[in-house]
């Protein structure tokens, strides 16, 4: 009971209350493949590409892949990829939402604000509309679709979700990150596409955010503050390109270092504004961008593998899950049951722009 007093940081203004992440649900679409299985399915023999798949940092990913015909993987048309994204978003979005809401005994009818995030496909009407129809949300639910912002988008999106919750105490806001990365999968035996194809995995995460005096730190953290950082000189470093008339994600090889060099800027602004030091942050929830970028973040912020253990676990077992990835790390942290009242956390996501998004969490 005295934990909060024991851990209290002198100059930090602990919020009385605020919008909390009170529940999380996740779903992993398709089939769980080991990296070796994917190399086999695609009959990959180029040693450089095989090497990319054999790195030790990723072991498994969930992907929606077509059935091979006579042992040969068939190329998917753009139309098939769009359909895969839509169907995956609907089916697994619904699954993640159901898990998230059941944990707090709510149904889609209780949701006042729905925000859907995706960068792996373009739909009109958007994912919110399709999920509202599929899951019978109320007809007057506010909604917003955030498209094409990339891996950082989960924090960009939770910002307005948190604002809605702050302005509407007692109302329920739901954010769903639906990334069907296998719908942005171009297979052309080039190194550029192989880098992406060996990294990204399919995953959907849904979180419920609300400001309610009945909720305590045990339910989840208050999302207290945000800080952004965009590095416009590197605007071309991560982007969609057209490969055989399909969208394929491109990653510049220097990008982990660019992020490493800049990571201190938003993090120190976020902490300084709240009278905090790095040593006060107990939990780090980082986007599972890849091993190199995690190394760069660790060495530039002075974090250890232990500090980012949840993210290393997600990277190893699911790959880079794009916008919802840091929420998968959050779920891993919750499973540990080590959080104490008054603990502070920082969430970090990185993506195209080049951008770094950060948020301060207070339990």
């Amino acid at each position, binding site marked *: 009971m005295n934990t909060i007093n024991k851990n209290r940081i002198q100059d930090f203004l602990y919020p009385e209350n605020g919008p909390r992440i009170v529940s999380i649900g996740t779903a992993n679409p398709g089939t769980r493949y080991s990296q070796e299985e994917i190399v086999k399915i695609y009959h990959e023999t180029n040693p450089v590409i095989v090497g990319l798949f054999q790195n030790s940092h990723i072991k498994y990913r969930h992907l929606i892949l077509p059935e091979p015909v006579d042992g040969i993987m068939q190329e998917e048309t753009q139309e098939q990829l769009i359909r895969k994204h839509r169907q995956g978003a609907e089916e697994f979005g619904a699954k993640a939402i159901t898990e998230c809401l059941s944990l707090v005994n709510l149904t889609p009818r209780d949701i006042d604000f729905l925000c859907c995030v995706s960068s792996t496909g373009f739909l009109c009407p958007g994912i919110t509309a399709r999920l509202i129809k599929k899951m019978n949300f109320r007809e007057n639910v506010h909604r917003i679709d955030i498209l094409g912002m990339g891996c950082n988008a989960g924090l960009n999106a939770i910002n307005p979700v948190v604002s809605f919750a702050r302005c509407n105490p007692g109302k329920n806001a739901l954010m769903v990150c639906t990334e069907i990365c296998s719908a942005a999968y171009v297979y052309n035996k080039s190194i550029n596409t192989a880098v992406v194809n060996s990294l990204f995995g399919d995953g959907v995460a849904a979180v419920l955010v609300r400001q309610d005096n009945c909720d305590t730190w045990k339910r989840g953290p208050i999302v207290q503050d945000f800080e952004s950082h965009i590095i416009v000189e590197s605007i071309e470093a991560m982007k969609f390109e057209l490969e055989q008339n399909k969208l394929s994600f491109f990653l510049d090889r220097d990008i982990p270092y660019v992020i490493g060099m800049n990571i201190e800027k938003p993090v120190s602004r976020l902490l300084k504004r709240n009278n905090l030091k790095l040593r006060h942050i107990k939990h780090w929830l980082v986007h599972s961008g890849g091993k*190199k970028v995690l*190394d760069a973040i660790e060495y*530039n912020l002075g974090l250890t593998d232990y500090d980012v253990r949840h993210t290393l676990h997600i990277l190893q077992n699911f790959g880079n899950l794009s916008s919802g990835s840091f929420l998968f790390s959050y779920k891993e942290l919750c499973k540990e049951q080590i959080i104490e009242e008054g603990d502070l956390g920082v969430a970090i996501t990185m993506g195209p722009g080049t951008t770094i998004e950060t948020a301060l969490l207070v339990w």
Partner: protein
Amino acid sequence: MKNYSTLQIQKEKDAITIFLHRPEKKNAINIQMVNELTEALDAIEDASDIKFLILRSKENVFCSGLDLHDITSKNPPDIYGFQKWEKMCHRIENLNKITLCCIEGECIGGGFQLVLLCDIRIATSKARFSFNEVRNAFLPGLATYRLAKYVGLGKAKQIMMGEVVEAQEAFHYGIISQVCEVEKIDQAIRKNLEDNASLPLSSWTLARRLMNECYSTPYENFLGHFLAAQHRAINLEDFQKIIKKYQSM
């Protein structure tokens, strides 16, 4: 810096000296000392005008280990106290300063643990090192993790069983980096501060971290860590200054 009851702190130019100070208890470590050390570290870590932290004592004894008198029926042993100690040790080991430890006389248990955390370890010829924890039926903290890296597993086992290591032998095993005569200790400290006045903290703290990790990180991961650290180093001001200097030569 504020006043502490178990520590005395002196600041001289860019060096802060923390004297362990419980003379009536031969500088034995109690929970108050752990709390005060932690608090002092907060201030030192944030002080950008400080480059060196020196740990030493004023008596003929550096530290007599954990204060077992501190544990009573009213105040039973608490694993969280040990956790706090380890957290503090980890912070000394990774502090954003160059750390020195000066050992005069007995250095037992927790005191010996402190020595293993520091970058530069100077002892007088009268210093004697030992772990009394296992003999007292508990454990010498993460000296179980650090000692063998200095001395090898074989010698570490001997030391953990209570063997006393004299200063010369401690020097031989690299536990301490320098032995000097009792009256020359201040001079030795000054010399070390002078020698390292221009050592960049940026590259030293990165090199130290890599070396501390090198025993437990697989090669592939370590290479990634090294590249991340090197990229940071070559983009920091310290390296840019050196390059400019070479360009103007």
